[in-house]
């Protein structure tokens, strides 16, 4: 047997080719890239150091055992990666596949560097199940490690193809899941299995497609049109984060805001009329710096990463243009998760409040709006990063609490001149207090006049200058001056370093 580099080169060359050419053809048909080409796009200079390339190398049909695990650089920062090779047994997990994934996770933990999961896998290799599934270093360990790493280092998933059955938990435990439209899917049981076991007839796209997960289930955070966009998005996402929980995000040179709408004209004084919150966001952040998370899911609340004067900030903003900006079960869930994410990695939080409150009615009570709302309020309470609450217009009821109102220890509670803080809006309040009296007035005009008079009295009682005189808000600023104030305040609050509470772990509603 040859001992020289010739044999080594032959091995390497065969392994790096991946699976059978017919599977490479299939990749092309589906607008998918080969795993090693994905890694070239991901890493600086297309360069990476691989571990365990020779896993199962004596078996010709199992190059690298269907997964590439590697260290590389993204914008000069060290990152660990696992990437399924769908040309090898459909990217399924054998015993060595699982061991390789566990080891690269352990490396990421030891180095305290971000962990990327490039997922494209049919799930467990059932023929290997005893070796890969149940034992101490079986597939369960991958998820165990993910939970352990959560909040320690950023965990990023790009979903290029299926993530089936147990494999679907990899994206579920990541901080962000970027999905490629039409190709990515996530499901516990395939459509074939669903038909056999429960009798449901459904397409893969309907049941677990990327669009469904990014709009309905909330398992997806970003819908990319193709693989190149997905990889770019993952790199951009990482740029807002530090390497681990002990570090802070990079500060970049600031850029001016987008020149657009006059913010003072943008916000209608009539609290009941909608406006587009994206225009306000554009007016206060560095131009082009917005990276939105869960854009297509629960759009009545906007969550995204941005920069103000070059500093990373996480924005939670009500969107009055969609469902009146009212908070629902899914919007509370979306915001809570985003707040936990920013707090874990020292990204200051900016709340832009224009919220009539949490939705009421039978439907949402049955969905558990109270516990989901409580979850968001728990997230807001426990976040110890710098928190700035901007009351843009109305902040009624528990909506004020959920948007980091004064009791939730924001470092700053700012009001725009259009702000209105109250238990409820004038119409609802007058109705609640004077319902009987209103009914007693028989003449319609007289009744209207009475209501109008009481509403005006109520508006005066909650006038923003009265609220400010009670020190409920710290400052009132014009909309056009908001960006400058935020940029300066974020700089002042940089040294904030507090602990929230002493205990083993909280028991928050979920």
């Amino acid at each position, binding site marked *: 047997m040859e001992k020289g580099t010739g044999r080594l080169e032959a091995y390497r060359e065969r392994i790096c080719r991946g699976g059978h050419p017919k599977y490479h053809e299939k990749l092309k048909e589906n607008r998918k890239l080969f795993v090693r080409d994905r890694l070239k796009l991901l890493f600086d200079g297309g360069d990476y150091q691989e571990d365990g390339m020779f896993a199962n190398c004596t078996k010709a049909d199992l190059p690298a055992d269907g997964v590439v695990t590697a260290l590389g650089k993204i914008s000069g920062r060290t990152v660990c990666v696992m990437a399924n090779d769908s040309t090898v047994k459909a990217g399924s997990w054998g015993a060595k596949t699982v061991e390789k994934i566990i080891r690269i996770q352990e490396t990421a933990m030891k180095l305290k560097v971000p962990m990327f999961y490039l997922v494209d896998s049919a799930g467990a290799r059932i023929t290997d199940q005893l070796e890969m599934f149940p034992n101490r270093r079986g597939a369960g360990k991958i998820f165990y490690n993910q939970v352990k790493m959560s909040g320690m280092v950023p965990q990023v998933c790009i979903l290029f193809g299926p993530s089936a059955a147990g494999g679907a938990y990899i994206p579920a435990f990541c901080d962000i899941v970027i999905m490629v439209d039409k190709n990515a899917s996530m499901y516990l049981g395939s459509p074939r299995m669903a038909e056999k076991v429960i009798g449901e007839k459904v397409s893969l796209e309907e049941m677990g497609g990327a669009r469904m997960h990014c709009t309905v289930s909330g398992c997806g955070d970003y819908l990319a049109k193709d693989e190149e966009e997905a990889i770019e998005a993952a790199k951009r996402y990482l740029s807002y984060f530090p390497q681990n929980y002990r570090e802070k995000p990079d500060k970049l040179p600031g850029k001016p805001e987008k020149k657009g709408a006059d913010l003072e004209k943008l916000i209608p004084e009539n609290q*009941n*009329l*909608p406006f587009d919150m994206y225009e306000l966001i554009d007016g206060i952040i560095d131009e082009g710096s917005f990276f939105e998370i869960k854009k297509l899911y629960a759009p009545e609340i906007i969550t995204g990463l941005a920069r103000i004067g070059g500093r990373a900030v996480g924005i939670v903003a009500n969107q009055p243009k969609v*469902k*009146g900006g*009212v908070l629902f079960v899914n919007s509370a869930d979306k915001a809570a998760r985003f707040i936990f994410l920013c707090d874990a990695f020292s990204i200051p939080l900016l709340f832009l409040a224009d919220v009539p*409150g949490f939705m009421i009615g039978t439907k949402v009570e049955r969905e558990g709006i109270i516990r989901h709302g409580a979850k968001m309020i728990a997230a807001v309470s426990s976040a110890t990063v710098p928190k700035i609450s901007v009351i843009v217009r109305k902040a009624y009821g528990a909506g004020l609490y959920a948007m980091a109102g004064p009791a939730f220890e924001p470092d700053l509670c700012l009001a725009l001149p259009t702000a209105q803080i109250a238990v409820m*809006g004038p119409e609802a309040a007058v109705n609640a207090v004077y319902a009987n009296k209103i009914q007693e007035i028989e003449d319609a005009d007289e009744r209207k006049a009475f209501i109008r008079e009481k509403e005006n009295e109520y508006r005066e009682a909650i006038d923003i200058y009265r609220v400010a005189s009670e020190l409920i808000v710290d400052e009132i600023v014009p909309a056009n001056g908001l960006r400058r104030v935020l940029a300066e305040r974020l700089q002042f609050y940089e040294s904030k370093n507090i602990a929230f509470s002493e205990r083993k772990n909280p028991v928050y509603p979920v």
Partner: protein
Amino acid sequence: MKKIEASMAGTVFQILVSVGEEVKRGQAVAVLESMKMEIPVESDAEGTVKEIHVRAGDFVNEGDVLVTLESL
């Protein structure tokens, strides 16, 4: 046929289209009043208004059909 549904529970405040009218994608076809807010309901498709299922003042639940469009 395309059904435009209520985005949330509330009262129909205004219907902005009439039968036979052409509707563009993104055009508001109705306004709901809910949580004291005016909530525009936009069409996510082009079409001609075939039927209007509700009247101003009606209570609608999330998902109730407000307007049916016929594809152009």
